[in-house]
Structure formats: C-alpha cells, structure tokens
C-alpha cells in the first residue's frame, strides 16, 4: 500500500520545524507519519456528522484575567537566555532580505 506521506513531504515538514534529519532517516519517518494518518483515516470512516468537535474534555469558556500589571522578569535574566546580545537586545542572524 502506498504511503500517505511522501519523502518530499517529510523533508518539507522537517524544514518547517527546523529539524535536521539525515536523508537515510526519511523513509523511516515517512512510514511512521503515514501510520498516524492511517489511524486518522480509520476515524474519518466513522459516521460523525452529528457529533460536535471536541477541543477539550471539560466544557469551559471565557476564562479571563483583569487588565492589571504584574512584575516582569529582570532584563539580565531575559538576556541570559539569548545566544548573543547587543544594546540590551537579542542579536540574531538576519532573516529577511530583498530578492535579487
């Protein structure tokens, strides 16, 4: 039976998630991810038109907090998480550029 997920799709999803995977691992992931989708297909086969979607087991809505300031983290603590800093900001490689 043909796999539900192609090798290209595995590579694409890995890129989106910024996961570095070895080309030799792609087949294995394609097989595993396909079996997840096959399980979903089993559920899709059921007659569920009259069943409301369930996002969470306990029916709960409108959980809100008042608009009151709480204490933020000290800046040194925040910046200690950054790989590199400059001018009290996170320094990161430039991501966006103009097309040539």
């Amino acid at each position: 039976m043909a796999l539900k997920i192609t090798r290209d799709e595995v590579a694409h999803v890995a890129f989106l998630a910024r996961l570095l995977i070895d080309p030799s691992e792609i087949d294995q992931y394609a097989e595993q991810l396909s079996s997840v989708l096959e399980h979903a297909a089993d559920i899709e086969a059921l007659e569920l038109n009259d069943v409301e979607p369930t996002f969470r087991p306990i029916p709960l809505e409108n959980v809100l907090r008042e608009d009151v300031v709480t204490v933020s983290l000290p800046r040194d603590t925040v910046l200690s998480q950054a790989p590199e800093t400059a001018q009290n900001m996170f320094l990161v490689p430039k991501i966006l550029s103009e097309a040539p």
Partner: protein
Amino acid sequence: MSGKDDTMFEEISDAWELVVGLEVHTELKTTTKLFCGCSNQFGSEPNTNICPVCLGLPGSLPVLNRHAVELSIRVGLALNCTVQASLFHRKNYFYPDMPKDYQISQYDLPLNIRGHLVLPSGHRVGIERAHMEEDTGKSSHLGGSGRISSASASLIDYNRSGVPLVEIVSAPDIHTPEQAREYVSELRSVLVAVGASDGKMEEGSLRVDANVSVRPRGSTELRTRCEIKNLNSLRSLGRAIAHEANRHIALYESGESPTQQTRFWDESGQVTGALRTKEEANDYRYFPEPDLVPLAPSQEWIQSIRDTLPELPQQRREWVMDLCGEATTNDRIETAISDELYPFLVATLRSGLSPQRVVARTSNELAAELPLPNYFSTERFVEICSLEERGELTPTQVKTLLTEATHDDAPISELIARLGLVAISADSLAEIVNSVIEESPAEWTRFVEGEQQLRGFLVGKIMKASKGKADGKVVGEMLVERVSAAKKVG
C-alpha cells in the same frame, strides 16, 4: 521625482481597474499584554516588559485579557460586525521576532465578522473580519558596516511581543489610491473614537498591509494579488498602491503576469520590491491553541458594550452637516469633528449658537491653537462665541480674544478689558460712515451709480476709521441702506 503632487504619483490607466483590500493592524490601548500581565507601554527600555508567557517558555500558560476583549468587541460593533463565539489558533512560523515560533491568532472562527464602513465620500467598504491576535517583537536590522558579528544581523526587542492587536480585514472594495487613504483615515478615527487605539501611525500602533491587483475595467474577475507590507503613512499607502498597480498593468500589457508574492515599499526609491524569506509563505499549519478556552461573549455582555459606544465620526458628520446645510465646506466639518475639537463644537451647538459660525470658529481659529491648555474649557469657548453671536464683539475682535484666551487663563471679562475690545455702538458707526462718505465724494457717487467694486474701498476705509471695532457685515448693511436712501433723494 520631487515636485510632483500626490495625484501625479497615483495616476493609473483608465483601461484598468484597481482592486485593493486592506489589512489594518491596530494595537489596543490596554494596560497589559494580551495573555500576560506585562506592561503594554510604548517606548519602555528594550526587553524590560517580558515574562515567561510572552517569551513562550515551556510550562507558561496564557490567560486572556478582559479589557482587550472588550476593546475588540467595541471595534467590531463600531464597524457593524456580528460578534460571535470564537477560538484562538496557533499560527506556526519560524521568525526571530516570535519567540514561541507561533503567533496566537484567530483563524476560522474570528471574534467579529461581516461588517462595513461607510467613508465620508459615501463609498461603502465591506469588513470581512476583525480578529484578535498578539503582536510580535520588534526587530531592527544592523547595517553591513562595523563589527563582523553584526554585519548581517538583527536586534530584537521583545517588549512588543504579546501586545494585543485587532486585525481588520476589508473586502476588496477599494478602487483608487485615494479611497485607500480615505478608508484608513476614517478607520483610524473610528478606532480612536471608541477608545481602542491611539491611532499613531508613526509609532506603529496602526499598521497597514495592502493586497493589490488590477483587472480590465468592466470585468469582475479577481486576478493575482501582491501583498505590500507595513505601509506606515497615508502618503506611502497611496503611492505604493499606485506603483504596484502600474507594475501589474505593465506586466499584463507586455504579455506577462505578476506572481503572487509579498512585497515591501521602498520609501527612498518610491518603488515596491519583493521580499525573500527562508520560510515558505502560507504554510502556517494553524491548529487550535490548546492552552486557551473558547471566547464566547454573552449577548448581555455585547449589549452592555454596545450601550457605551460613543458617537462615531459618521454620526458626528451627519449631525453637523444637517445643522450647517450646504454652506459649510467638508474640510471645515472634518476638522471640527476631530476628537480634540468635537467637545467644543458640541458645547457651542448645544448652546444654540449659529452652526455655521461656530463650525468656522472651531475649525479655523480654535484648531490653530491646538493643543489647548487644560483651563480652556468648553464653557470658556461658549462664552467667547456668544459674544460674537450677540454682536457685542466683531469677528476680528473674537479672533483676537480667542488667541488670548488660549494663552492666558484670566477670566474673559478681564481679557476683554485688557485688550480694549469693545464693539462700536450703532450711533458712532453711523458717524464714521458719514465722515467716510464726505471724505470721498467721487467714489461714493460712482458706488451709488452701481460700481460694486468700490464697496471694498469704502468698507476698508470705515473699518480703518473704527480701528477694527466695526462689524464688516453691519457696515455692509449700512452702506446698502445709504445707497437706497441716496437713490430716493436723487
């Protein structure tokens, strides 16, 4: 390129119709962020309003800000939307200004749907949705010079990350650059009027993306569109749209087609350019945010918010136009109904003063004195305008008094005494008119015989003789009386 006015920059061939939909992001005027208690204050020191929630650290949980919800509903109601039960989704993308690598937004069930906004010109623009989402951090890009480590780097300040936003998505109902500017300007007034936004485009609290396409005039198809990001002034908006439309037209006319893409507006070059990101566009893998429960405002809550909505710009405009009739220009009315001036206009109109006169005083003389000092109350303005209405002061004197009364908090009566502002009595004015007629017999005779252009000469002489205390309108009436008297004698 300089020396041309906006309409030159915005010219588009008549054979093509412009089709534009706008996405306007507005930061909400809350005290704290959307999902945590960090301060939502513009201009704080970088990276000082940050906590585990807005940094997306493992184990942190977002809780929705009630005030942000109320402001979002106010926006929706002001834009004639239906407020509905809604869900939050995660929009996944990799970009350093989003520390979580996803943005919490609303997807297929936004809070506000299907509204519209009527522009001052009467054009109606559909609103597809107005949904809640969190803002991203702010990045500034370092140039290519200086240290090697900073040669191609970005600096990120996460203070803005998690600030509440409403994104208002219009239908593709905008067909000229001018309509686009009019839409954003009117939307801005609405957002400020309902208290949702401070409307400061220059501080980024209002940001506009434009989806632009063109089609042969008369056709109803929707062709490939390009999205221009982050247009931060009304002028850039109009020019960027026109430039992009003309780029599409040139491609079609040379047998090519534009590619759907995200572009930016280059202010210095006055052109749009393509953006290239390492992320593939529109692969956001939205899924319901598991850490937030649905937002389903009750009808009672929605109604209580509706009950506190202020008068919107369109209602103000219609009210003032009805009172003034055709005689007052739209520009004057637009100025007079602006948020800073409107309370003064309302106070004078409610006092029963002549609408045309108080719209003129509000939009010209009072507008020139903005920002007004705290002691300049609406009562103070009514007192001054009433003096003109009753004929106790001339328009010239009222203008002088108004300037003084916005710079000096002394009582009006004291300012009048100090400035020597006393309207001239009818008897003294009659004497002045007589003496001017005696001094210029030749001009007077020609005026009586119908040379209307001498009217200005005579009025000027009388005003001068009265040292500016005479009312030009009264002088004019007096001259008309004298002419008819002279004709009867003749």
